[in-house]
């Protein structure tokens, strides 16, 4: 574990997005939300300035700020008492968090950011959202929604149908 600082400032973790924007969150929050931070903080010792920098230089500012927002919220929710109300409020918050203004591109960026710091909570949330988006859709519709190229030959398609013949698609 990192040595305890002698100063009285809270230690922070800073995420740097594309364009050099900085987003900070307290170390405690990072420990709860991000696996990479947990692993890193095991062997990094703080010297001098009280912050650990994580570079996410190919990700836009908005998803990174959303990520930090999510981590802060999750950490706060984790400390408050669990109850049906709290669970309901969390669900509502998650709905608003991934609201209508979050398009597929932003979703992917968010996923990218979450994967980079191994924020399992957010990865799970985005996966649930994508699953919800493609449930019940035909393959062509899925390709449209997620912007995927169709690279299967007709032969391969037939093969797939035979391979899964006992599932009545």
């Amino acid at each position, binding site marked *: 574990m990192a040595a305890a600082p002698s100063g009285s400032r809270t230690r922070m973790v800073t995420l740097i997005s594309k364009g050099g924007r900085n987003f900070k969150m307290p170390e405690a929050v990072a420990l709860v939300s991000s696996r990479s931070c947990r692993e890193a903080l095991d062997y990094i010792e703080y010297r001098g300035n009280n912050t650990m920098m994580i570079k996410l230089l190919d990700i836009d500012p908005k998803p990174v700020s959303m990520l930090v927002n999510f981590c802060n919220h999750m950490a706060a929710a984790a400390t408050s008492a669990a109850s049906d109300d709290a669970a309901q409020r969390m669900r509502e918050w998650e709905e608003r968090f991934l609201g209508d203004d979050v398009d597929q591109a932003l979703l992917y960026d968010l996923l990218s950011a979450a994967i980079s710091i191994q924020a399992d909570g957010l990865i799970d949330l985005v996966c649930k959202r994508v699953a919800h988006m493609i449930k019940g859709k035909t*393959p062509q519709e*899925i390709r449209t929604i997620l912007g995927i*190229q*169709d690279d299967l030959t007709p032969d391969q*398609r037939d093969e797939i149908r035979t391979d899964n013949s*006992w599932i009545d698609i």
Partner: protein
Amino acid sequence: MASLRESSNAREIPIEILQEILLKLPTKDVARCCCVSRPWRAAVADPTFRDLHAASSAVASMADAAEVLLVSETEKSEPGRNGDHTEASIFNVASGNAMCHVAVPRPYRLANVCHGFLCFVHCAGAKAPAVNDGHLFALGFSPATPRVYKLFRLSFPSYSYSSRKLVHMDVYTLAPSDHQPGGGVGTESWPPALIDGKLHVMTAGWNLRHQGSDNTPKRIFVIDVRTETCRTYRLPDCSEATAYKKELVATFELDGRLCFAAHILSRDFLMFIHFWVRTPSAPADQDKDVNGGNKRPPCWELLYRFEIEGPICADRPWGVCSPTPLTSDQGRRPVLMRWDQRLQLPDTRLFPSERRWNICRGYRPSLLSPLTFAFPPPSEEDGRVNGHRFEHALLRVLRCNGGISTKEESNER
């Protein structure tokens, strides 16, 4: 963990994340996703993923609606690869398609359908040392323990020196285990119904004095798969008949509850059909001990009662399928009977006596494949397609008469 890389406009989702997403989808959606693109197909084809998905998809909240299958078992003697075997042809009733054809070694017959599995058991039954009478097998599954399937073997000794009738129940998960006393004699007319993690078996009465069974259905024997305990319930009291006849009753699942259906005869002619549904038991019932059965009056609710017009001689109903049709075969002239109408099947040559068919509920497809044991699909030259004329006729009648809800024709090809 791989990170997302940008390549022109589209991004690739790493395969592990894709699998995370697919794990949250029901089986059919995952199967459809095979057709999206090559990376998606590879993600679904991964055997570890399939295994994981099959386990998690069995949890009730994720499950697809149960499907109805028509299983036709034909005995064949073919020299060569399979020798004497039974060909089990499995058709999906809702879509009318043949799903697969599997070779089953000759003495095995269909016992029940449990989630993604059809359980076939050896007819002759392994002769256990103490008991050598009829065995009833059922594959059981409880949503509370999603990875565990248990094979229950119920043996009904023909006589016993104790004053209580015993049922020996062997449970095979990884190793055979214990015996549990119960009550009643099994009947093989109906496969056990698996509802919400409990197996329901119809049992007949037993007469101590005559040391035999009197074959009248008397009780339902319920096995909780997870705890491997059991109890019995009396069948509903019927005012219009003195007793139920063994061949004319059925138990099956209706909307998540146990339904008991009975043909009531009057002088050999079908007069009424009753559908009783078991109401959920009161909490106090949970403490009842195994041997005494249910001491309170059984909680059955008569859901439907149909009066049949015109004399119909029904000697044996064959299968029950969702939502309410009751099929029955009348010997020479096959007729399908629903609760509100009689449907004539087109004139097919009568199927040979070595063929049995059954309509089975409760099938939920999983990603684990039965195709390892499958025949190649029948081709026109093979003549096997003709062999299924009866099944095709039956499926057509079921679909055209709205007996089974049919899928829209706009399935993606």
